[in-house]
């Protein structure tokens, strides 16, 4: 009898939660905006760049839990001043150069929001694939290498929805990501990123 009461109470609580969710806006979300990305812990490009953007969207399966998809891109460039390189076998090369790392990760994401009111802080995780292109530009030459890898990224941020009759709002988040991409010819074995993103939330 006691167990039966508990089950009834739990069922009522669940129904109440779903009912409450229906009052907090749309069940889906779309976020898009500008992404500032820094690459580090590699021997190719270690700097930060604002040449990037992101797009992500999902569905709130539960009031606090959403699942969706994402995609983003970033380019990080680094200028290498003129130097002379010993190429072995009696060869040498003198030039300045620029290193460029272009990344496009995409895949699935899961998000947990702590609130579904005006201010909605959340934590999330992304998993998927990453396409990357590493290029070494020298004079009139460009040596490039393309790669695919596995991508994972934890994220923490918030969205703000200040308008009473609209789901429109703003988003700010910081993230770390790691991709398993390898560019052996250019001495890259795994790509670490960290950055923030600033955008609109619908």
């Amino acid at each position, binding site marked *: 009898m006691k167990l039966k009461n508990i089950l009834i109470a739990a069922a009522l609580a669940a129904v109440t939660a779903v009912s409450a969710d229906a009052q907090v806006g749309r069940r889906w979300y779309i976020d898009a905006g500008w992404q500032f990305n820094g690459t580090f812990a590699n021997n190719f490009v270690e700097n930060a*760049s604002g*040449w990037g*953007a992101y*797009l992500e969207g999902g569905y709130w399966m539960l009031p606090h839990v959403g699942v969706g998809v994402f*995609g*983003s*891109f970033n*380019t990080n*460039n680094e*200028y290498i*001043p*003129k130097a*002379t390189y010993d*190429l072995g*076998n*009696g*060869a*040498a*090369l*003198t*030039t*300045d150069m*620029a*290193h*460029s790392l*272009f990344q*496009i990760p995409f895949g699935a994401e899961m998000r947990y929001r702590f609130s579904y009111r005006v201010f909605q802080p959340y934590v999330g995780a992304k998993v998927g694939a990453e396409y990357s*292109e590493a290029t070494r*530009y*020298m*004079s*009139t*030459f460009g040596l490039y290498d393309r790669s695919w890898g596995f991508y994972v990224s934890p994220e923490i941020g918030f969205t703000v929805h200040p308008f009473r009759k609209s789901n429109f709002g703003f988003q700010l988040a910081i993230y770390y990501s790691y991709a398993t991409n390898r560019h052996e010819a250019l001495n890259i074995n795994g790509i670490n990123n960290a950055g923030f993103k600033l955008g609109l939330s619908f």
Partner: protein
Amino acid sequence: MNRKILFAAVMAAICAVSCQKMPSKVDADGECLVYTAHSENTDFSGYSTFTIVDSILVIGDNMYSSYLKNSFAAEMVASVKSMMESRGYEYVDLDNKDNADLGIQMSYVTDTEHFVGYVGGYSDPWWWLGYPGYWSPGYWGSWNSWYYSYPVTYSYSTHSLLVDMVDLTAQEGENESLPVLWNCYIDGGVSSGSRYDAMLLENGIEQAFSQSGYLSKN
């Protein structure tokens, strides 16, 4: 609905791919890329004299040899000659080339249609056969052909300067080949043939010798 989502995804992908940011050329120092290579088995102090062809072979879009002999060519030749003399080698004029230990020939690429793009290691030491009008070993003496005596790896682009140094003390004969002992490749994307371009190439020649410290009589 699915078609709209698919369309949006494709458009986003196209946008992402097209948004790759190229490095700014403003950051580049504007100097030439300089590649040099040499035979590590060669003792360059064992040579005493050199000569240099007073014209520059133009590697263009036709199948025939043509040579440049103007103020631009004279500046390039003078620059190489000066660097060789600064390394202790004695210049011998072309009329007495039989007395020279080393011979230097220069080429200027204006078109890559008949010229190979990339060679790695010893896989193809005869890369220059891709251009029928390339230098003939017969110019230097009675050699059957000539070859690089070490691995060469580079890719040519238009408006680049090539310098080859051959060993004129090598055994001559119908079945003998003339070895190249040192070469350099200078590329800076020059195109207008201006005074500034000539200066860039001259700086490149200086750099080529600077990174070839072994190239010395002393």
